[in-house]
């Protein structure tokens, strides 16, 4: 019940705001912030009461919703969703502070923000497929409104593209959900869409599994977004208001990766294993491609948006390493990306607010005019390129190590993204922050004010915290990941050692396997 409260508190806040007079902007903002902050604190309470050692769903609550179809209001939280959940409430709070200066329709803006928050939280806690789908679609609406109403000049185009693109994927997922529902009904005799139940009992035939997997894949891959489904992202990011971009990068994209972990992997472990090379290559292409394209962007937000494609490539790669290093790395990288990219968007938003442009060539030499800003930007940028000691490194390294266990070549290709990340971030940083302060308009820029500092500093603290001591974060999903791995580990599906002829999925470089292979050959010859 507590979880329900935390989840729905923001939308109650939104309803409450609707009754406030439109003119009283101060009260509106303060109320919105109060709700968001309360929600964040409550979610922290959730975290402190969370039992790290268990992989089971916690704070579970299950009552019937639509009885005749066996659809339940079933919620719960486990290690995989906990951090995302807390990050959602956290970023919502930050975003509300960051949008303090919104001029147009402030009340509606705050309402949309709070409603969005509930939508996103719902996605992470739903344990019923239909409920999940409802939340999944529901959060599109406030986001669509936020981009479409408070966005930049091409906001309508971006909003529509965002909405339709993601909805197309979700519809296929709906088909898959319905198929699964009837399949479960047929095989077990229980009409239910309960995710936990399905995870236990689903046993779809392999050829159909492939299609179901693809349907889920499309919905999540668009959301993540994986190459080549990423083109909605730059448009949406560029046009969205600052807070919208932060939420988009920080949480919405994570829903895609969360989906992979919650559905694709546990429902279809065999197919996930079969598709591993496919995903790995898509992710690697995404990593390199996102970085390369990011490098030549002229618009700051677009640059950051493309860098998201690259970063999310790492997350996907980690998930489909299908081992503990990879998935843990992917989960922490999820959080890292939310923090770093969120902070980058906030910082870009700061100069956009002041100068109303995001073109890199308009800037230069800002670090002279705005030293505090420059330092913050620098830290965030370095975290984004994965400097060890900051958060990005922990995730990236684990992901790469996970994938290295699977295939050394993949790891090498993906690691090249680390070089390219340095290229695009540093080049951008140089052009924006360094060089001479030439543009007269930039000479009047003010440094960060108190409110902006309040939004950035917590993120900076987290950057170092996760970078230096990620234990409190990583221990939350330790048990859940181990449990997941026990089900999806490739060892369950790899042909037994006797048939291991080519060993195509395994790094040919690894001496352990080499050893094993040779010893088998030896045995065979001795038998003959």
């Amino acid at each position, binding site marked *: 019940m507590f979880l329900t409260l935390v989840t729905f508190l923001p939308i109650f806040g939104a309803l409450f705001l609707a009754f406030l007079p439109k003119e009283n902007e101060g009260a509106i903002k303060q109320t919105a912030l109060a709700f968001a902050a309360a929600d964040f604190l409550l979610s922290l309470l959730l975290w402190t009461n969370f039992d790290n050692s268990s992989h089971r769903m916690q704070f579970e609550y299950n009552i019937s919703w639509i009885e005749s179809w066996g659809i339940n209001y079933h919620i719960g939280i486990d290690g995989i969703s906990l951090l995302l959940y807390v990050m959602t409430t956290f970023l919502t709070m930050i975003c509300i502070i960051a949008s303090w200066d919104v001029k147009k329709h402030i009340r509606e803006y705050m309402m949309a923000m709070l409603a969005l928050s509930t939508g996103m939280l719902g996605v992470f806690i739903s344990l019923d497929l239909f409920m999940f789908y409802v939340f999944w679609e529901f959060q599109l609406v406030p986001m669509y409104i936020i981009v479409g109403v408070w966005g930049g000049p091409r906001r309508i185009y971006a909003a529509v593209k965002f909405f339709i693109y993601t909805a197309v994927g979700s519809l296929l997922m709906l088909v898959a959900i319905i198929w699964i529902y009837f399949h479960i009904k047929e095989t077990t005799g229980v009409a239910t869409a309960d995710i936990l139940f399905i995870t236990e009992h689903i046993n779809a035939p392999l050829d159909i599994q492939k299609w179901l997997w693809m349907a889920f894949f499309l919905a999540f891959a668009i959301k993540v977004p994986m190459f080549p489904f990423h083109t*909605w992202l730059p448009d949406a990011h560029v046009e969205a208001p600052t807070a919208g971009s932060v939420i988009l990068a920080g949480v919405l994209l994570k829903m895609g990766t969360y989906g992979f972990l919650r559905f694709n992997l546990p429902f279809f472990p065999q197919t996930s294993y079969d598709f591993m090379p496919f995903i790995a290559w898509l992710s690697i292409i995404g990593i390199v491609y996102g970085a390369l394209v990011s490098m030549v962007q002229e618009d700051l937000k677009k640059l950051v948006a493309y860098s998201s494609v690259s970063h999310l490539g790492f997350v996907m790669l980690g998930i489909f390493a299908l081992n503990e290093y990879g998935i843990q790395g992917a989960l922490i990288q999820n959080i890292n990306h939310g923090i770093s990219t969120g902070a980058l968007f906030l910082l870009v938003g700061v100069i956009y607010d002041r100068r109303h442009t995001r073109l890199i060539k308009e800037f230069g030499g800002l670090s002279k005019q705005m030293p505090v800003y420059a330092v913050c930007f620098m830290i965030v940028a370095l975290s984004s390129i994965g400097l060890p000691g900051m958060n990005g490194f922990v995730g990236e390294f684990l992901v790469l190590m996970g994938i290295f266990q699977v295939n050394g070549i993949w790891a090498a290709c993906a*690691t090249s993204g680390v070089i390219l990340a340095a290229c695009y971030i*540093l080049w951008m940083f140089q052009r924006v922050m360094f060089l001479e302060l030439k543009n007269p308009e930039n000479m009047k820029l003010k440094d960060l004010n108190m409110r902006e500092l309040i939004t950035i500093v917590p993120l900076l603290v987290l950057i170092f915290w996760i970078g230096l001591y990620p234990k409190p974060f990583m221990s939350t999903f330790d048990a859940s990941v181990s449990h997941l791995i026990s089900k999806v580990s490739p060892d369950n599906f790899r042909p037994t050692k006797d048939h291991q002829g080519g060993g195509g999925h395994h790094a040919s470089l690894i001496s352990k396997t080499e050893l094993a292979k040779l010893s088998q050959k030896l045995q065979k010859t001795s038998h003959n």
Partner: protein
Amino acid sequence: MLLKLTCLVPLFPLLGSIINGFFGLRIGKNAVGIIAAGSMGLSFLTSILVYVGYLMLPEGQHAYEQVVWSWFGAGDFHVDFGFQVDPLTLVMMFVVTGVGFIIHVYAIGYMHEEYSFYRFFAYFNLFASAMLLLVMGNNFLLMFIGWEGVGCCSYFLIGYYFEKKSACDAGTKAFIVNRVGDFAFLLAVMYIFNIFGSIDFSTVMHAAPEKLIYAGEAVTIITLLLFVGATGKSAQIPLYTWLPDAMEGPTPVSALIHAATMVTAGVYMVVRCNVLFNLAPMTMMVVAGIGAATAIMAATIGMTQFDIKRVLAYSTVSQIGYMFLACGVGAYTAAIFHLVTHAFFKACLFLGSGSVIHGIHGEQDMRKMGGLKNYMPVTYWTFLVSTLAIAGIPPLSGFFSKDEVLYHALMDGNIIFWGMGISAALLTAFYMFRLVFMTFHGESRVDPHVHPHESPKVMTMPLVILAGLATVGGMLGIPLFHGWHILHNWLEPVLHFDLAHALEHSEHMLHEMGRHAPSWSHLLDPAEHNIWFEIFLMAFSACVAVTGIFAAYIFYVKRPDLPGKYTKGQWGFELVKNKYGVDELYDAAFVQPTVEGSKLLWKECDAKAIDGTVVGTAKSIGWLSKHARAFQSGFVRNYALFIAVGFISLLLIMI
């Protein structure tokens, strides 16, 4: 227990950096300087305490590990935030904190006019802290924190004058080139984990002989990757191009980062992983070859440059080449020995050049110097001492260390390496004295408006100390009395390697795999140590050094017109002067294609192909709808027509 203080060593500079970074503007320049240098001094003193603590370790224990906290992990992977104190670490700690302290003091004087004094020292302290992490970390990843941390600080310090485009470019270049090396390093670490299931130095080094096959594929790849990482950080072929550009930073930066400490991190890393390298003879060949080639190539470029700091930069590249040459032939002691002496004399040279630049108000072109020895005597004499040291004149430190490298190159390597080394030594003596003669001797070519002056005490004192160290540093490893080689005995626990044991294991493993082990017995023959031969070599190389100096004397003091005459119109000279066009080559081969390709990728692939497909789908649906809309014309007659068409088609089909 004194060893518990270990974690304080990197902490002091970090604190200094934080204080200076946050409050530097408010507390004033003097306080900033005191905090910065003081934190380094404290760090140095703590290092001494740690050293004492280390000496008090019980017999047989050669390393102390201190785990501060558990950093991160997943599954069976686990990495600690822990420090390790062993002889190698201690040597490096002393170099970093000691030389670092001296350079910090110097920088107080050198940077005094700067507005962002505090920023400089914040970065500088941070660098020292990162460097200490690098040398003190007890596992590869902690080393990597330091490894990247120093790269990052170097980036900021090179780009310290961020309003200058060349400085920014140089910083970015340094970072990115370093990243290429880091990429390889990371892969190596992952590979190591894959094999050993751990990335702690002690575990890996201990298990290496049992888990890796001598000259096997795995160890060769690991060491090659590690070495690529080292080439990035230590500016070796093919990743050396960033170092000369890095001279855009303030001179103390060049002295500390780009001469004494950071660039030698690669050497440190190779020595740290000596067990792995010992198992990979092929990599060793590569290391030695690259080292020798870099030594000679950088020396040739150094002869043609006129920017005083660039000459020193190339000289640094060249000297690090020596260190890698030493590593490559298995003479790790020699490498570390040269690393230490190089830290002394090269720091002194850089600081001296800084003093010169400071004295003539920022001029760096040697063609606009000359005759400065009368104006700045202290600088001159210290500079001369260090130059003699680097040129290899006995009994200064450089002579001993370089000679040890060359001796091992000949004995454990082959005559080609030795030949390359000795030619590089000749060139070194030549270009270093060219530098001295052009700067301090002859006619003054200084701009008449500039009045050269000696630098303040705070700058000259460090010079004197470093010159002193450069003079006596050779005592660490006088090779003549073999049992008395201090450094060698000291490093013995780290460098101890039982080849026979490793080979035995390899044979065993190969046998298990059903392969036949090649004959390795010749590897176990002990190398003969001929003291007279060594003395002969020493004498020979001293003669070579003197020859180089004499040639420089002829060219730049006696007949200053000669160089111009000989070099004019020579395409070879132009090529060398343009650094063999490597920068341009890299630019054309890597940078431009990447940038242009990315633009193409963005404009053509992303915007047109991928987004075009998406938008195209939407548009074609729109187009269809637009035309389908014509059916809903609103004219009743049209609707009637469709009813009729439908009706008739039904009729036609059904009847």
